[in-house]
């Protein structure tokens, strides 16, 4: 249904933004508070919980790794044409299956118009 496509795009974009705002923002605030409290423990402001430094540090190491990966992904254009990979993946799989003789008889071009991106 080509007419429905822009609506679908809009619905997707709105859902994306809602989820970003609803949980990424509060989570970022929560994270900042945790970081502050952790620093307080590390600086000896409170004697309670110094034994927790190693476990929490562990988390931060992984977190830094993820942050580097996010930065790398962003600078390498991984999110530029954000819907494209889903069409490519499906097309590749269709070709692989068909090269094996498994035909996608119900494959709908409507769902999946070659490499066209919705973004």
């Amino acid at each position, binding site marked *: 249904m080509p007419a429905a496509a822009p609506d679908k795009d809009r619905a997707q974009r709105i859902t994306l933004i809602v989820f*970003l705002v609803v949980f990424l923002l509060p989570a970022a605030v929560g994270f900042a508070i945790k970081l502050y409290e952790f620093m307080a423990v590390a600086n000896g402001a409170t004697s309670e919980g110094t034994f927790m430094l190693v476990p929490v540090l562990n988390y931060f190491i*992984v977190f830094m790794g993820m942050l580097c990966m996010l930065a790398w992904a962003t600078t390498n254009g991984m999110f530029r044409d954000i819907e494209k990979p889903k069409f490519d993946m499906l097309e590749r799989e269709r070709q692989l299956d068909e090269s094996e003789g498994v035909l996608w008889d119900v494959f709908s071009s409507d769902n999946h118009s070659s490499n066209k991106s919705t973004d």
Partner: protein
Amino acid sequence: MADTTATPTTMPAVGGGSGGQGGDGKLVETTLVKWHFLMGIAFLLVSMLAGLLYSMQFLQHYPLKGIAIFSPGRWRFVHTNGVAYGFIANVFLGMLHWVVPRLTLRPVASRALSYFIFFTWQGVLVATVVGLLLGEAQALEWGETPVWIDPVALLGLILVAINFFVPMMKTTGPMYVTMWYFMAAFVWTVLVYAMGNFLPEYHMNGVAAGAIGGLFIHDLVGLFVTPLGWGMMYYFVPIILRKPIWSHGLSLVGFWGLAFFYPLNGIHHFLYTPIPMFLQYGAVISTIAVELVVTTVIVNFFMTLRGSGDQLRTSIPIRWFYTGMVFYFTTCLQCAFQTTLTFQKIIHFTDWVVGHAHLVMFGVFGFWLLGLMVYLLPRVMGRDRWYSESLHEWHYWITAISMLIMFFDLTIAGLIQGYMWRDLAPWEETLRASAPFWLVRSISGTAMIFAQFIFAYNVLMTLIGKRAKQPAGEVSPASQEGYATA
């Protein structure tokens, strides 16, 4: 360096995907996929029998009393380690050998290494079972594997990561969400395993070791099982439904949400302990944040299903997948409550948690893996179709119903136990009140095992049945019905 985002014009040989023949230059080593699946099924059966055996202890009718290697506690470890490392890990490894080469259009780094990993992993599993039965368990929850196995298992995990990373790193351009999940899972699993098995064992003690233990348990389920499971769903659901995932952007929000907030959750396993309260509150809040991450995944999959609902009836794999998703949503909703301090007062240490563990480990990930095997096994065994389609129906319905019964049974038992403990009821009385629920657990468990034997029988009969009439590469569309049963 080829760009996998571009549609390839010539396809590499898939490795007799449907026919399963060998031959060089093939993309997928179907024999390995098949072996991992078959070993996974074998471990599922053994560990479920171990669970049933252990459940008899609760009924005070343990059949093998007084024999050291049959002491119930040891069989509990066989049960939990068997389902996690024997069933789930084996089937995941088979799945990765199928998905990664097809996604990247490159075979794994080394086929010989894959076989080496296969045999090492089965060796590790058998040694674990033997070690546990001989009483060599470590006092570390989910890390009970005998201490001398830890370095071998870690080495195995590093080799797995290398083997799959090589084809993944050769791809360029925006990656499909499945690749994100898999890449992260490989790194996380190695780190989590090393952290959970070596830090508490050699470097830490007391509450800090406990906190690491909590982080380990949760990261194992959240950073090994969850990303591989979600990555797998993002790959197979669109392929079986023949349409792309509803929103790739939303799927990436889910991925990054998982990456940043899941590791913070570990401490929710140790609420009301001497761990500082700010960390406990942090764990509760980030656990609830993870619920929202889960919601993005669920929304995405149900929006993708829209307009294809009849597939729930006609396609057995899709039915397993979406039943797992409904259970996932159910258990995560349950988790949002169980993680609050109000609920913790009641349900911690009760059968409520055991109910959660079964619903999520088997009802969700187990169901997804069963759906995957229903879809792929005939192809990797070189068969046109399943021996029996109606056995699939029996398998599905008996498993799903008995899973639901077990879940509700344990959840209610947990609430009763929790309230009775809170009211300081005598211990014997709480045992008496729990006994009927434990009986129902054993009965529903027996039904569940029976259903898995039906599946195993179907696999066996398919395996010894006729090979595909057409050579590899010439399987008719009708053979697809073998996977999408009408």
